């Protein structure tokens, strides 16, 4: 009887976007909004939401977690101590959102002070690893006033340095340019594979600064690069967001067969089936139930990593022509009823009710709806 109630609730939840409360932590959680001041040269500020001040006296490199904002549409304003509005913007906040508002820019005409939104990535953290989300807000200018890139390198254990070069120059787009690092084997408990972050300005040829970020299995860490390389030196701030229970990665078996969905975005589903091959014993195939450009229901097939679109077929189902899709996706299973879906190339947003994988989140967390739990073998 319990099963029946569960199934019906789940089914309706998938169909109507209701319920699924038990499965969806987002449905019960309030959004998380943090605020950080990383605009070199800007005065101390306060943050107002809908004309109500939330935080006061926030100076450069000051970070305030959980400022407390309810879901809905909001008008945000950043004011200096003398009451002048430095910058403002609108924000649409969903219950499941987790984000940071960064005050950034240097106040010049080509890079005014602005409030950027940076969504937390939601990768489940796999065993023995942590995640590092990097946001570059440095504003370094050359002698002529032109913006200069900041170089950022990461070296973990014996792994080679991965250099990225970026600078904050998003103008007024209002979206932070984030990078995400997933460090396998990066664990404080074992002392292995410590990571070093190297930071260098292109303004001079001096040795790059070396920073050692905190590390621990399950740590969800942000790093923020800020400064102007002159009166405000380039620097990295580390913000510990959470230490989470890590998840395992399990190989697919027929125990995962069934209907899966994203509780945060009901409407699209995946009918998953274990389809092993000799070369890949954990290969899966799936029918993806989604929607076309005119909002009509349509379906595609995920075969291994490639998503195939049908070019057409007849209503009798005797003939169909396959279209090779360029979209590629990967599913990692963490339990019989918990998986994460990530895009390898292309976008899923074209044909599903799922959010774009690149923004605001990088993975979609899937829960198994039917049948519940692990399938017993040989029973249907």
């Amino acid at each position, binding site marked *: 009887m319990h099963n029946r109630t569960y199934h019906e609730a789940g089914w309706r939840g998938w169909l109507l976007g209701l319920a699924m409360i038990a499965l969806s932590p987002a449905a019960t959680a309030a959004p998380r909004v943090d605020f950080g001041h990383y605009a070199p040269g800007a005065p101390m500020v306060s943050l107002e939401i809908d004309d109500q001040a939330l935080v006061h006296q926030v100076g450069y490199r000051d970070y305030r977690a959980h400022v407390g904002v309810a879901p809905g549409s909001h008008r945000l304003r950043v004011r200096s101590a003398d009451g002048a509005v430095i910058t403002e913007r609108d924000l649409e906040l969903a219950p499941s959102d987790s984000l940071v508002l960064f005050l950034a820019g240097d106040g010049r005409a080509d890079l005014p002070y602005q409030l950027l939104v940076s969504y937390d990535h939601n990768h489940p953290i796999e065993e023995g690893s942590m995640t590092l989300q990097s946001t570059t807000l440095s504003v370094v200018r050359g002698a002529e006033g032109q913006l200069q890139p900041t170089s950022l390198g990461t070296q973990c254990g014996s792994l080679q340095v991965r250099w990225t070069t970026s600078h904050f120059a998003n103008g007024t787009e209002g979206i932070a340019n984030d990078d995400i690092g997933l460090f396998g084997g990066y664990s404080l408990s074992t002392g292995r594979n410590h990571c070093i972050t190297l930071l260098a300005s292109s303004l001079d040829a001096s040795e790059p600064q070396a920073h050692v970020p905190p590390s621990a299995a399950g740590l969800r860490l942000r790093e923020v690069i800020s400064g102007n390389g002159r009166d405000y030196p380039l620097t990295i701030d580390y913000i510990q967001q959470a230490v989470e229970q890590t998840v395992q990665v399990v190989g697919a078996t027929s125990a995962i067969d069934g209907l899966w969905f994203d509780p945060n975005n009901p409407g699209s589903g995946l009918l998953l089936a274990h389809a092993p091959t000799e070369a890949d014993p954990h290969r899966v195939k799936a029918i993806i139930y989604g929607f076309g450009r005119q909002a009509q229901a349509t379906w595609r097939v995920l075969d291994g990593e490639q998503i195939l679109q049908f070019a057409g077929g007849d209503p009798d189902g005797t003939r169909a022509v*396959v279209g090779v899709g360029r979209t590629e996706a990967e599913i990692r299973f963490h339990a019989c009823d918990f998986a994460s879906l990530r895009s390898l190339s292309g976008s899923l947003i074209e044909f599903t009710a799922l959010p774009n994988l690149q923004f605001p989140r990088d993975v979609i967390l899937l829960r198994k709806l039917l049948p519940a739990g692990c399938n017993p073998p040989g029973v249907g």
Partner: protein
Amino acid sequence: MRTCILFLAALLLQVSSQVRADPLLLGNFAGDVGPVDIHVNGQRVAAGLDYLDVASIDQPRGSLTISARSATSGAELAALQVVFKAAISPVQPMLLLASTGEQGAPELWLQQESRLDVADFAERFPDSAFLSIINASTIESTESLDSGFQLQYQLACQRSRTSGSGFGLPQLEPIEWLTTVDAEVGSLCTLQLGFTPAGAFEVSAIPVRSRESVRFLIVGNGETIPFQLAVLAGDQLHAVADAIEVEPGPLLPSNQFWFDRSRPAQGVALFEMPGAGLLHGTWQTFNTSGEAVWYLLDGAARNLPGDRDLTIFAVDMEDGLRLTPAGTGRLTYFNCNEAEARFALSGQPVRFLRLERSEPVDQCYALE
């Protein structure tokens, strides 16, 4: 006097360049006009070119009046006036007859220029070849996201790999690129091409040689002439690939997925609620326009064991997620692994599916 000499020299140079002949490929890619003759400046230069035939001639440069005529009736099918120039890139000029005109009328088109034209091509790219995808089918490209079509391709050669996608490929306006060729052994390429709604194509072991053109031509109209991918390596027709059709067999191997062996391009996922006599499911099929569509199934047990009355719901995201009753159906289990489904969508003929479970089971909730 000196001016006069220079003028005469220039005139001589122009005349000599006009009479110089270059190789010109001729191809018939218009599927429904029968064999054709090609006439250039009033002279027949090729006779009886069938569909997908390719010929090579030596053609003097200069102004050309070209016509394609039916080899049987002599009637003019298409005409073109064009200046035939010296090729400066690896594009080997080609005259195509394709059904790209209004309502599929045949058209002549001379491909002899390229956005990749480089005067000193041979010196700058000595080990490269020129490749192009050309839509010579009746499918017209549009900018509309609603009525357009999608093109996706992946080309993998021994040394290089490229891919792309987008909405549409205008007729006879090729996608072009250069690829590096191993000078000693040549290069072998594989092209996967998705051209919705024409279908998917795959051609492998395409020989690519240095300073030579490889053309991938999508041809056909999908009605009287099937959509095909013709591959020309140099002046040779290397392959003609048909659209890839779904292989017979279930779309998914799962004990929740049912299919009809004689109608394998659709399927049904069924979830019986243990002990409840309730059924939830999905049905993925194609509508009368040939578009992939899925429905939700909600079922309840009837008096007869193994029988389920079904309500079929259409789903859309017009204004948020919306369910609309679209028909009714009945499902009858014969045993744990065989069943019959009858789907009656409003205003459409009833569809019967003789279902079998794609992964048979020993026990099932359906007959409990």
